């Protein structure tokens, strides 16, 4: 038998080209360099940095994490080294790797996002921005940006006006209808959507009668949330015309394929990096092997290929 040609793994997210659809998710991969001793970052489709603000953020007091069945809660409190430190200390090391470096940005007011987008526009090595709209907006009385379609529109439009970089908007699942928020982000000029962020949760230590997290509530991630994420990707893909990056509990190549069948053009690997720190590299290999075995020449053929009849 003649050896089959290598299947094509590259994907294009409306202006952002990736060598394969496997991206390390924000908050689970540090600034990328933490994982560099374990594999060649240049083999990954991309990586999203820890969420960055224009200032250094200390984050929440510990305990910040708590294990739950097939998942974990976290309330890190957006700790990060700040934009300038990232640009001067981390980015110069990161750009030696041939992977898409996606910078996740957040703020407490729309103006913080605007400043972050302006600062990163034209910075060498930044492939795209991922806008985290799951933070509470101080000026709007603490309402989470991403739970209100009009606030989402306003924020994304403001950022859009300040950068020529591809914009991914990361949506929160803690809403009644995620497709409404998705449409707002699309209308405001997002290139692609990442969904989902963590689900708001809580855990209690019965022996101490205390909340398990110092912040009381936190974001649930891991395999436990995968069906919720998959459902939201599926529903959103039917309502928007921009690419979707699926994220939420993915921990095997079968999971990657599920999200692509549901309509995702690429995926992010999050919590699985914690319990299986070389998973991103393995998924790239296993996805290629799957395509080869199934005689699929291009990974894009999986996108939205769910059989519903």
């Amino acid at each position, binding site marked *: 038998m003649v050896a089959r040609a290598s299947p094509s793994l590259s994907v294009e997210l409306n202006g952002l080209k990736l060598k394969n659809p496997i991206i390390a998710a924000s908050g689970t*991969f540090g600034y990328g360099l933490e*994982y560099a001793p*374990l594999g060649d970052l240049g083999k990954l489709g991309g990586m999203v940095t*820890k969420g960055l603000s224009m200032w250094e953020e200390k984050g929440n007091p510990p305990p910040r*994490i*708590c294990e739950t069945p097939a998942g974990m809660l976290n309330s890190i409190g957006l*700790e990060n080294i700040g934009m300038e430190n990232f640009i001067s200390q981390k980015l110069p090391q990161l750009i030696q790797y041939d992977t898409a470096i996606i910078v996740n940005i957040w703020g407490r007011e729309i103006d913080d996002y605007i400043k972050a987008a302006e600062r990163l526009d034209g910075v060498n090595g930044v492939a795209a921005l991922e806008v985290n709209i799951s933070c509470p907006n101080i000026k709007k009385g603490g309402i989470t940006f991403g739970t209100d379609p009009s606030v989402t529109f306003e924020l994304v439009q403001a950022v859009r006006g300040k950068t020529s970089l591809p914009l991914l908007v990361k949506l929160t699942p803690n809403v009644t209808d995620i497709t409404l928020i998705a449409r707002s982000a699309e209308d405001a000029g997002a290139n692609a959507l990442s969904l989902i962020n963590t689900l708001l949760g809580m855990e209690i230590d019965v022996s101490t009668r205390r909340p398990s997290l110092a912040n009381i509530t936190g974001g649930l991630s891991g*395999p436990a949330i995968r069906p919720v994420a998959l459902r939201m990707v599926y529903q959103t893909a039917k309502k928007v015309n921009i690419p979707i990056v699926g994220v939420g509990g993915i921990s095997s190549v079968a999971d990657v394929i599920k999200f692509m069948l549901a309509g995702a053009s690429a995926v992010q690997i999050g919590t699985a990096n*914690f319990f*299986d720190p070389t998973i991103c590299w393995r998924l790239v290999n296993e996805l290629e092997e799957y395509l080869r075995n199934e005689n699929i020449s291009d990974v894009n053929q999986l996108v939205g290929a769910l059989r519903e009849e």
Partner: protein
Amino acid sequence: MEKRIYHLSLPLRKQNSIAPGYWLLSLKSAQIASVATPGQFVMLKIGKSFDPLLPRPMSIHSIIKEDNHRLGFTILYKVVGKGTRLLAEKRSGESLAIVGPLGTGFNLNHIASGYEPIVVGGGIGIAPLLFLAHELVEKGQTPTVFLGANSQEELLALDEFESLRLTPKVSTEDGSKGVKGMVTDLLASYLDDSKGSQGEIFACGPAPMLKKVASLAKSYGLKSQLSLEQRMACGLGACLGCVVKIRNKNSGHSYQRVCTEGPVFNGEDIIW
């Protein structure tokens, strides 16, 4: 030097209970053993199940050597929850996914002659201290060792310290061996008797014990290096889940990662 971290599937060489609820397991890995330093740890994933989901941080207890070649390492742990209970059921030949060696261990660079290392362990906190004691002895030091536990049967690895020709001073809370009381009481009276000693305290144990050690070190003008424990997800410095509050040089505080800047911190820097 580039940091070497390995993600390996290692067959369990052997595992046995050394006291009720306490287990010692051996893993073969020349790679990890040859670069590990005292105070470092590994992340250990117990099976492929999603419950428990996260790997557990475990101190390196000792290095397995043959003819001066570092072949592997041991882990000493206490069964405290679901993860460690499942771990205790693992038998020789079964594999464990290991990431390591990780973290910043004890700093021994400045140790010279005429200097007294004081090693203090409480309960399962002795886990990283045997490796430390080995290293100190190899450097020609004779550390003074204090070990404390609830009872005689929970005084772990005493014979291991003795085989290094060290004579640990021992305390138990129930008085079944050594002095009745806390190990920090023993340490306090020792420091009181040996005022002016040029040394440094190396300790690991429960947080209240370490807090006491830090305050004793301060009152006797000694430096202390304390190995802390915290819930962890990645062990690699990425998740920022395992932080402790550390005093800044100028003023205020910052959060530092137990997995990366630690697990060993200077006692005077920790905000309890």
